[in-house]
């Protein structure tokens, strides 16, 4: 099911680096028997990997030098979240696993330190996607960790006689996600129960954040596998209420469950409200939930053309991002069926699939060449401008294979990319609502599947050579800038007082 990927600039040299999560060796011949769980991560083959980008665009494996060589022997790597949780100016990493999760503090000198025990964020169980966000707007990034199922090797089972298949998630009990509140002293408090997050047990795989009802507080969407989806509304008092059914995002418009895997929470039709797109299994369709305002969404997979593009595809990591800088967010999806023998069961489906790249033409999506026509078992996907040319690139992980880097060939359209620096708000500016020339973005590195993307906020400007920028920081500070020249990276520091 893994693995995750993060695009982050860990050494603040202005270039995105790549962190890849590896699985591990399952040391059990007979799952389901009296198997003792053990995952060999000492062998370099199973290390997570950090690749530092060099000035010439090549990458160097700095895993060992960075102190990330071994993830221990009691976990199987899944995903990654990336953010500067302690506001020290350096991006940290949180690696999820089946087993013990790890928080790596970035020491600012090219190395990381495992601070999990001190921080109190090991979680346990089967963690999948995670993300940093500031749910209480106190200027400190909190952490949400989704978990998939109640499962362990001893209670594993296989389904189907011939051919054997993975069991449906319905065969295993659901489990709640974990919310950690950042105390600001390097430690976190588990507020899952107090916040109401633990009250809903799911089968989560993906998570994304946005303020869907524009009340100034970050809400959470959790993509669940084979059951209703969750939309946790942030009540603004440290608690959440799950409202997916009322909001119209729990099921499809036919009332059917989907096998939610990846998710993004962004405004695809430039109406200023964040929408939701969820990737799922073949024979379903990727779900598009359009934000109608007033806390309600409508299912728009058919009208957007996404249903027609995804009926026989299984999607994982994904993002709504303006790849051609025309002012409309396009869609990229890492694809491939979950079962490597799916062709034996349904000849119309495929384990290996090419990724989907669909361009947004005024709110309707049309397939285009992704640049990689070969089918692959795509899983995680992270998005960012690797070569700082103003055009968003993609790195996709491949199950059992080498990751794929999609360099954006670029074009003539203009763009603007903002690096936010919070002062009253969290330093990364996560949760800021950024509006540029009628488009909107929600600042976050979360979303996709198991992955963390470039935290800079990117806009395509089409023919415009300048932009009007409005940033509503999580602190409530509103910052406006007019006539910002296009085609540049702009660091925006949150003012101490509203301007």
């Amino acid at each position: 099911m893994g693995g995750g990927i993060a695009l982050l600039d860990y050494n603040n040299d202005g270039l995105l680096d790549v962190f890849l999560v590896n699985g591990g060796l399952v040391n059990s011949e007979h799952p389901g028997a009296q198997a003792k769980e053990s995952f060999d991560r000492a062998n370099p083959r199973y290390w997570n990997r950090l690749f530092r980008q060099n000035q010439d665009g090549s990458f160097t494996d700095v895993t060992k030098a960075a102190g990330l060589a071994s993830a221990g022997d009691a976990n199987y790597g899944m995903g990654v979240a990336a953010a500067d949780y302690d506001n020290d100016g350096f991006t940290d990493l949180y690696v999820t696993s089946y087993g013990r999760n790890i928080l790596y503090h970035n020491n600012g000198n090219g190395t990381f330190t495992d601070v999990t025990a001190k921080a109190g964020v090991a979680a346990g169980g089967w963690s999948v996607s995670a993300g940093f966000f500031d749910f209480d707007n106190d200027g400190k990034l909190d952490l949400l960790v989704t978990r998939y199922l109640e499962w362990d090797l001893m209670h594993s089972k296989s389904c189907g006689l011939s051919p054997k298949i993975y069991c449906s998630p319905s065969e295993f009990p659901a489990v709640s996600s974990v919310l950690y509140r950042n105390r600001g002293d390097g430690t976190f408090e588990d507020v899952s129960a107090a916040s109401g997050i633990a009250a809903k047990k799911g089968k989560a795989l993906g998570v994304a954040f946005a303020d869907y009802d524009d009340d100034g507080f970050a809400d959470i969407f959790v993509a669940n596998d084979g059951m209703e989806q969750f939309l946790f509304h942030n009540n603004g008092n440290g608690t959440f209420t799950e409202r997916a059914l009322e909001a119209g995002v729990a099921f499809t418009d036919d009332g059917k469950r989907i096998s939610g895997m990846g998710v993004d929470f962004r405004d695809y039709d430039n109406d200023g409200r964040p929408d939701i797109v969820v990737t799922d299994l073949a024979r379903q369709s990727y779900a598009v939930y359009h934000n109608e305002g007033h806390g309600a969404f409508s299912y728009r997979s058919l009208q957007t053309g996404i249903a027609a593009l995804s009926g026989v595809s299984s999607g994982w990591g994904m993002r709504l991002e303006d790849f051609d800088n025309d002012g409309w967010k396009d869609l990229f999806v890492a694809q491939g069926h979950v079962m490597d023998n799916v062709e034996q069961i349904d000849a119309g489906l495929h384990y290996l699939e090419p990724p989907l790249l669909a361009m947004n033409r005024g709110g309707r999506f049309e397939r285009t060449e992704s640049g990689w026509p070969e089918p692959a078992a795509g899983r995680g996907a992270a998005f960012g401008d690797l070569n700082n040319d103003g055009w968003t690139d993609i790195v996709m992980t491949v199950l059992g294979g080498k990751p794929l880097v999609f360099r954006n060939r670029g074009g003539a359209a203009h763009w603007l990319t903002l690096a936010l620096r919070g002062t009253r708000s969290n330093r990364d500016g996560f949760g800021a609502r950024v509006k540029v020339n009628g488009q909107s973005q929600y600042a976050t590195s979360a979303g996709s599947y198991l992955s963390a993307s470039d935290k800079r906020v990117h806009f395509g400007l089409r023919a415009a050579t300048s932009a009007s920028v409005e940033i509503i920081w999580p602190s409530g500070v509103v910052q406006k800038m007019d006539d910002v020249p296009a085609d540049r990276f702009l660091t925006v520091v949150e003012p101490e007082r509203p301007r």
Partner: protein
Amino acid sequence: MSALWFVVLLAWQTASNEALDRLKAGGDALKQSKAAEAVAEFRKATEAAPELPAAFVGLGQALMQSGDYRGAVAPLQRALELNPDLPGARQLLGFALLAAGYANEAIPHLEKVRALDALGVAQLKTGKLTEAIANLQAALAQRPGDVDLMYYLGRASGLLSRQTFEQLRTTGPESARAHQILGETYAVLHNTAGAEQEYKEALRLRPATPGLHLELGELYAAESQWEKAEKEFRAEANLQPGDAEAAFRLGNALLQQGKVPDARRELERASGLAPGMADVLYALGKAASLDGDPAAAEKAWLAVLDIEKDGPLAGQAHFGLAGVYRQRGNAAKADAEMKEFQRLQKAGR
């Protein structure tokens, strides 16, 4: 049992006391399903009265009860030799022969006694499919809920269909229909490329064949190739403007592509051609809802619920109605519909 006792009564006055005692004991044992005991008693009866047909009928029936159909054949045949007009004996012999695998030999006996159910089965086993279908249909008309009869009728029809198709392929291997059959076979085997090729060849040979575009369209629809599916369904709808299924499929293909007003038009046409079809009405409601006409959606979905109370479409209709009522701000009605939806969902519908 009644047939046997009729025979026994006929024989009553001519047989010896011992034979009659054995007959009675055998009959009692049969009643109590003591097959082995019945066999022994009837066998002794045949020995005591070798010319008594009832003793042989009883022995045959007892052997059948014990599962020895082959063994039952000889005594039943002997009974008929002694009295060819014994109706119960002939029926039993027909059953015994059929059960022992001698279907061909069973047929004349079953024909004579007009045992249509067993006769149909015997004819099915001997490849006389047309006759089998006629007799099984007649038998099913007398016993409408008989699942065994339904099974045999379905099997006979399937075999006849296959046989006819084989004949068609032999007679006209390059005919449009032969390619259509091959297309259907490939489609069942999920060989999309093969099926597509055969359907296209069939269409090339006979472009106006009803049903061909529909089948090709369904092939594309299964692969989510909606544009291609739309083209084929449209061709079928043009060819057969009165065909509700073609209109429905076309409407659905349009809907899948988000071509909502066109989809709605076709689905309305389908609904007009075949009123009262729950799946058409559900899709029509969905198209109306997407087209921004909640009143029409409500009407269509309520009509679905008039037809289907508990099925999957009912659940979907309740879910859709909840959305309509929520949109209108009628929380109470929305909640009621959602509860129904959840109830059906829990029930696995």
